[in-house]
């Protein structure tokens, strides 16, 4: 359809180059560069951490952080962006964890095989569940995800001859021969997850997801196949969680029903919320923070969980967009705003 002026003419005549430059600076590759630099610093820090905290206790603690980062970030991809609250993340974590354990115990598969298998199984489950449920509105989707996780948990407990009942399955092959190996393998998986999901969130895929979260009707009216995007995000979310679950099972050499319990879903959710939903980076902060705080409060004994849950409530009340948002807003007071099209606040 001939609409008259062509694109390249416009950019010479119609739009001042300074506009384009500024938009590019905020939305284009340059904006990404500074974020990626930050990621690189983080990655280096993670890789070098064992030099400072090289004892078994710390290595295992940080492994736990890696695990929760993967869980929280994967959860965030769906819920933080599209607004569909997933209350059953443990379905994929525990489901893949047990699947990997069973493949290992009965078929002798090693971690190099069970890790991708766990991710794949979780992804397929995500596809099946998502296809059924993502066309439901918000609270209904939340309820159904919860139901699937709860049903899995009950099934695991009922079929105790298969799943080991309350005690779960022990004697699973180790992830790597030693805690240092576990640390580095989990670090690689965690960093791949974070960087991969972050780049995804900054891409047009992420834009589509955000548009769904803010106004699904308008998004559809803009030609976006919202259901397909939601399902895709759910599948990615599920398989990443499954990967993490399988990894965890091997590292602990044990899987238990608590990996499919709703309290794990809640815990992961809280990490993402406290850190800052919808950012991928926020959940990283939330996971590290809550895991380390939880550990450091151990000395408080019975009051530990009380302080922990009170802190979560306070953060949600006073920083509803999470700690990441607090950091960003705090630092924006320190850095001056440049450019013609400085935004209004």
């Amino acid at each position, binding site marked *: 359809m001939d609409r008259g002026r062509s694109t390249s003419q416009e950019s010479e005549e119609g739009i001042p180059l300074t506009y384009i430059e500024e938009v590019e600076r905020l939305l284009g590759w340059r904006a990404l560069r500074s974020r990626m630099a930050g990621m690189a610093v983080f990655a280096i820090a993670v890789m070098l951490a064992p030099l400072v905290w090289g004892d078994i206790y710390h290595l295992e603690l940080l492994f736990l952080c890696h695990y929760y980062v993967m869980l929280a970030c994967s959860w965030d991809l769906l819920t933080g962006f599209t607004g569909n609250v997933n209350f059953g993340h443990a379905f994929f974590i525990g489901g893949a964890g047990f699947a990997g354990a069973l493949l290992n115990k009965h078929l002798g598969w090693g971690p190099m095989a069970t890790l991708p298998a766990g991710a794949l199984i979780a992804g397929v489950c995500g596809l099946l569940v998502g296809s059924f449920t993502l066309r439901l509105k918000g609270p209904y989707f939340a309820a159904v995800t919860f*139901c699937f996780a709860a049903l899995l948990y009950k099934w695991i407990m009922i079929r105790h001859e298969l799943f080991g009942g309350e005690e779960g399955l022990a004697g699973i092959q180790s992830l790597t021969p030693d805690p240092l190996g576990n640390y580095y393998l989990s670090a690689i998986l965690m960093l791949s997850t974070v960087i991969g999901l972050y780049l995804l969130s900054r891409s047009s895929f992420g834009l589509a997801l955000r548009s769904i979260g803010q106004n699904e009707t308008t998004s559809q009216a803009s030609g976006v196949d919202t259901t397909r995007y939601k399902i895709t995000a759910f599948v990615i979310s599920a398989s990443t969680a499954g990967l993490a679950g399988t990894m965890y099972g091997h590292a602990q050499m044990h899987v238990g029903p608590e990996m499919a319990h709703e309290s794990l879903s809640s815990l992961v959710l809280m990490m993402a919320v406290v850190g800052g939903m919808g950012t991928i980076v926020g959940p990283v902060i939330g996971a590290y923070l809550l895991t380390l705080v939880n550990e450091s409060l151990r000395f408080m004994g019975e009051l530990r969980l009380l302080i922990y849950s009170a802190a979560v409530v306070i953060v949600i009340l006073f920083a509803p967009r999470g700690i990441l948002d607090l950091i960003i807003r705090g630092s924006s007071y320190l850095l001056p705003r440049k450019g013609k099209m400085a935004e209004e606040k």
Partner: protein
Amino acid sequence: MTTFLDILVLGTLWGSIYALISVGFTLIFGVAGVINLAHGAFYMLGAYLAYTFIGVLELPVILSAAMAIGGTAFVGMVVDRVCIKPMRQNHAYVLLITLALALLFQELMYVFFGPHGKAVQDFLKGEILLGNVRVTYQKVLTMLASWISVGALWAFIKKTKTGKSIDAVAQNVEAAVLMGIQPERVYLMTMGISAALAGTAGMLISPILEAVPGMWAFPLFKAFAVVIIGGLGSVEGAVLAAMLLGYSETAVSRLVSANYPDMVYLVAIILILVLRPRGLMGKRAQ
């Protein structure tokens, strides 16, 4: 025959309790669009307050009951004002803050009362015999009190002026505002009523089940199920669904296996959402 009577009696008991728990849950949703995941925590609060007043302080039952219900209603209103009101329009936020509150309440109860179950004495002693089934007066009282409470709520909403203002806001907030109704007041009041109903259920249950810090979870899940099956926002639907759930669970427990009743509501949710998402009597299109 015994089994049938058993199912009938127990099913009615649990159905009534589910109805009492769920009616408040669906009410606050229908009126304010709030899915209050702390609803189960109010139930828990009612039970623990009953234990404190009756069991520990040994106050008279009627007084304790009133204080337990009033206390729960008060907490509910504080939660609404402080936690929900600031970002009421953001549904995901409301889900998350109420969930966080539920977890906080659990820990508070754990710290104050410890992990072991706290039992309350039956309000009325004795039992009657229906056929071969023994029914304690407590259970009968619980059933009656549930029905009276639900009935009172219905009468309040349909017949009184204040109640009608709640109904008005549920149907059309803007129109209600034009009629001079203040929505925030209605939301606050509705939350108080909702919490009071949950607290009443908790208080009535406290002699039958022990009070434990984790007891907020199951009524929340059941309420959620009932409300989805009955239709979000529909009080009549909630009552119907509650009774259905009560009977189904009891039937499954007696006829199939004791392992499975807890899965009935989960399967029911999934079935309803696949077959008839708006529920049996759902009216509010979200």
